[in-house]
């Protein structure tokens, strides 16, 4: 079966990506041997979608499916943006790109020259990019420097990025790298930092340990458990671990960051309240089309004075 995923002619953030996937067939479905992604004129892929798509497409390629990407506008459209972000540098070589793969990578030519973005970086424990948290932080602060809480935000952001990337190292037992990227959206007064991996996923590694380490949480649904990972700090390694994601979430709350977490079949959008992230104020989505791994995006406002 050929699975067609056709994006609308609009901005495609992670929510729009999910809507598009839900209205298509599941690309990881057992009968699917070919997946076609169509990007029509006017389709604008945002950074959180870009890294999730990259992970998904490389997963499909790894599972021996033929994958084609059709960009109606060619390099003049969203393909040009993806090229600038380094999307094609990390894309599996056997994925067909129409009209054609960029002959030269714009990310390689212009990489590091735009303070409003950090090109897609691969995250692999065997090849640790030790400066990546600082690069993401510097890019973020270049645009968030006018916030009254900028000084504190800088340290908090660095911690969040370091913990997220380290979390990929902990969970990635996979043949596909993890990815991280940042994009500032001045008109939307937002900066988005997206981190994505194709590993086992927090839930797959945590569930087996729940019974022994956290018996009181055994009956929670995956969604409620996911929220608790960020609220309480839960780790498969026991009660003295799990502080990294909890600490990251606490810092994001302090600076009014929104948190979007996508696991293989569920997604939770957490917006901070006075007492932090709460399950009953989260936007939860269950039964989503399969994407392996853990995909996290933090969104911060550029200027809280506005």
């Amino acid at each position, binding site marked *: 079966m050929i699975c067609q995923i056709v994006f609308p002619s609009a901005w495609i953030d992670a929510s729009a990506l999910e809507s598009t996937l839900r209205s298509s067939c599941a690309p990881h479905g057992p009968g699917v041997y070919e997946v076609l992604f169509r990007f029509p004129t006017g389709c604008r892929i945002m950074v959180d979608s870009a890294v999730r798509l990259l992970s998904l497409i490389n997963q499909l390629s790894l599972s021996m499916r033929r994958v084609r990407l059709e960009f109606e506008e060619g390099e003049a459209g969203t393909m040009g943006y993806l090229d600038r972000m380094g999307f094609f540098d990390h894309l599996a070589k056997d994925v067909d790109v129409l009209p054609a793969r960029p002959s030269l990578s714009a990310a390689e030519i212009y990489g590091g020259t735009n303070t409003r973005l950090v090109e897609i970086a691969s995250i692999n424990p065997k090849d*640790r990019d*030790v400066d990546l*948290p600082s690069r993401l932080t510097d890019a973020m602060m270049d645009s968030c420097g006018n916030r009254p809480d900028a000084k504190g935000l800088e*340290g908090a952001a660095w911690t969040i990025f*370091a*913990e997220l990337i380290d979390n990929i*190292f902990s969970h990635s037992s996979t043949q596909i790298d993890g990815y991280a990227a940042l994009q500032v959206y001045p008109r939307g007064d937002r900066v988005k930092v997206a981190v994505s991996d194709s590993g086992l996923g927090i839930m797959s590694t945590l569930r087996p340990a729940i019974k022994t380490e956290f018996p009181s949480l055994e009956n929670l649904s995956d969604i409620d458990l996911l929220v608790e990972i960020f609220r309480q700090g839960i780790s498969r390694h026991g009660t003295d671990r*799990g*502080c*990294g994601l909890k600490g990251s979430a606490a810092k994001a709350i302090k600076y009014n960051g929104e948190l979007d977490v996508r696991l293989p079949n569920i997604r939770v959008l957490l917006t901070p309240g006075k007492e932090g992230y709460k399950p009953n104020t989260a936007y939860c989505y269950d039964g989503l089309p399969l994407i392996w791994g853990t995909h996290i995006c933090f969104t911060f406002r550029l200027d809280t004075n506005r």
Partner: protein
Amino acid sequence: MNEKSAIIKLRDFMDSQEGWGRDQGRKVYQQLIDFVESNPGTMTFKVSLDQVRRVDISFASETIVELARRYRGKKGFCFTDLADQDMLENWDAAAERKGQPIMVWEGKNGQVIGITPSQGTLGAFNFALKRERTRASEFAASMPDISIANASTKFKQLWEQGFLLRREDVAESGGVEFTYHRIG
């Protein structure tokens, strides 16, 4: 007895001014263990964070916090040169998770991060903090409603939880009496 102390310049154990991630933390931890073991007579290690720009919570958890937990009751670890608020929060979060108190010193002013003493032992802790070393009998003498046995229990709890260190001394009576030392 004049107990020895040593300074650990954490930056000297790190590859750069920034420490993040559990793997990097574990490598640093092994070097720290070697350093501690090569100083067998030293009871207190003052960990200077001079030239350390940032650490994340995972790195904090795997290095000094784990070290303090490993040697709890035997050797003490405290921080100096820790002015950065975000880094303080990260050390605090990591120490809290492991239930490990750690002193932070700024000149003569000390504060404890990670966990705080219980209401029942707070008075004894504050008493000990004002002195390099003290005995339960001295605390009891300063508090008319607290017996020596009660004071001893409080100090023992503080020692077991990692707030204080202690050494065995010979009392004037000839028996054993413990001397409790603040960390740092």
